[in-house]
């Protein structure tokens, strides 16, 4: 923590170094490297099967890379089990929304604070004074986040009955409750209509600015990525195809080829 604060700002917050993933004989990722700077919105794009989700799952520790390393503030995250990723400041959302359907919005977001609080079953059963204090501060924080994302009205409703767009906001709220330094968003625009996508884009930018969160956006929706990302990494067949500003990547001949076929056709 202190090391990161003292380090010059151009040190990456997250560094992906030569990451390869092999499933059986299939190479899903082949030596991918890139850096994420503090405060950036980094868009990770690529056609279907390019390896975006594989890389995403390496970052959230669901897959173990066969080679390479992933460094968060200079420390490897690959020795950590999946449930100890939240505590170092990596939060995520899921492709098709993975909320706790039977819990209320409030409780879903409260679960998000799990990595930032502590308790044990005996103190919890007896509701000791320090547990009550901790729950009180959890509630304050959760209500602040719900207000920030305009979710107060549905706070006590079970999430399973909410519209899809609202569920996505609940998932964002749950991820924010863990005070992440990096937010990994897996296809947040999926299932949203045209207008909702741009509202979401504004929201992601607002979250980055207000809450000083760095965002990794894995996304199919080219319009969203190109409008909000500061930096874009394009993958194809498990390799990094191009990297740079949205304009640079859009103009890259290899990227155009991967998406549209070669120019001659």
């Amino acid at each position, binding site marked *: 923590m202190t090391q990161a604060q003292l380090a010059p700002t151009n040190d990456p917050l997250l560094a992906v170094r030569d990451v390869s993933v092999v499933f059986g004989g299939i190479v899903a990722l082949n030596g991918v490297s890139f850096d994420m700077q503090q405060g950036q919105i980094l868009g990770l794009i690529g056609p279907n099967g390019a390896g975006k*989700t594989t890389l995403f*799952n390496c970052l959230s520790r*669901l897959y173990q890379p066969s080679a390479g390393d992933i460094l968060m503030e200079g420390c490897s995250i690959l020795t950590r089990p999946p449930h100890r990723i939240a505590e170092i400041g990596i939060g995520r959302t899921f492709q098709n929304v993975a*909320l706790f359907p039977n819990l209320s919005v409030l409780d879903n977001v*409260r679960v998000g604070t799990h990595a930032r609080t502590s308790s044990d079953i005996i103190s919890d059963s007896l509701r000791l004074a320090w547990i009550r204090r901790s729950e009180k501060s959890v509630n304050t924080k959760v209500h602040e986040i719900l207000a920030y994302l305009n979710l107060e009205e549905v706070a006590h409703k079970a999430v399973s009955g909410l519209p899809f767009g609202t569920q996505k906001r609940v998932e964002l709220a749950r991820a924010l409750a863990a005070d992440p330094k990096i937010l990994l968003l897996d296809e947040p625009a999926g299932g949203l209509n045209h207008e909702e996508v741009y509202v979401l884009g504004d929201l992601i930018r607002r979250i980055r600015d207000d809450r000083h969160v760095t965002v990794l956006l894995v996304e199919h929706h080219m319009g969203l990525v190109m409008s909000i990302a500061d930096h874009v990494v394009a993958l194809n067949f498990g390799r990094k195809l191009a990297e740079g500003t949205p304009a640079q990547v859009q103009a890259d001949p290899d990227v155009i080829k991967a998406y549209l076929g070669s120019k001659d056709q």
Partner: protein
Amino acid sequence: MSAVEEIASQAPAVEAVPKRAMTLSSGTTFVVVLLLLVVPLFVKNFIIFQMTMLLIYGLAVLALNILTGGSGQFSLGQSAFYAVGAYTSAILMEQYNINYALTLPVAGVICFGFGFLFGQPALRLSGVYLALATFALATAMPQILKLGFFEQWTGGVQGLVVTKPDAPFGLPMSQDMWLYYFTLAITIAIYIFSVNLLRSRSGRAFMAIRDNEIAASAMGIDVATYKTLAFGVSAGITGVAGGLGAIAVQFVAPDSYTIVLAISLFLGMVVGGVGWLPGSFVGAAFIIFVPNIAEGISKGLSGAVFGVLLFLVIFLVPHGSRQVAMVAQQLLGKLRKN
């Protein structure tokens, strides 16, 4: 969609209750507790004994409810934990002359450890497979208790006779009545602890695991630890219930704790409403009284009558007593408006 995402979006194993709907309102609670306190003063000793057993089975069903309704894990092995608790109390009281009240925490702690350890291999199993593994535990337990090696403590096939405690401080009440109030105090304490637990950070972790393990893990919840803790807590409470049961029945024998008991407890949970803690006691009433009612209707066909009654309950109120309570609440609300 990758395999992982598919798991992440799968429906939860248990259809469960939102957390707010887990307990009774304070008014209802007051009435229920008042009834539990006053009724024994006006009824015969046998009824008091049955009410004691209702509280004891209610605790055992509550324990299963924390495991299944809370953390989403099935168990058909609760009779094994109940047996360990019963034998712990009986052995401590009869072989080592320890006060009955002191044997209960010991039974709870031993069963917590047993459940926690059993939860470790159970981590690799879920749904019906977990139910089968716990079924094996329930089947094995009576035979383990009969083993010659343990006979000097357990009394082997004969079992152990337990002395019923007298009311302390020269209180003018029968043994049955004293034991009832003693059980009631413990039941209320455990019920309060359980409600606190399920409403806390740990309880949220249990329910998050029940609803979606991968998302729970991404939120920093150590799924393995909380799953085994749920097993431990459930077994611990079942152990206390078992110890109380041994004292109330005044007898422990291996064949009192067969798979039939485990299935009864499971039945009690379903009839009471999975995940609804007050329902545990309704479920316990069902498994204690309904067989008697069935026998009253037809001596020869009591099993069949019980089966029919069970069918009726499952068809008419699939969510158990929770459903009945919710309908009643809505009706009351309407009445108040009119």
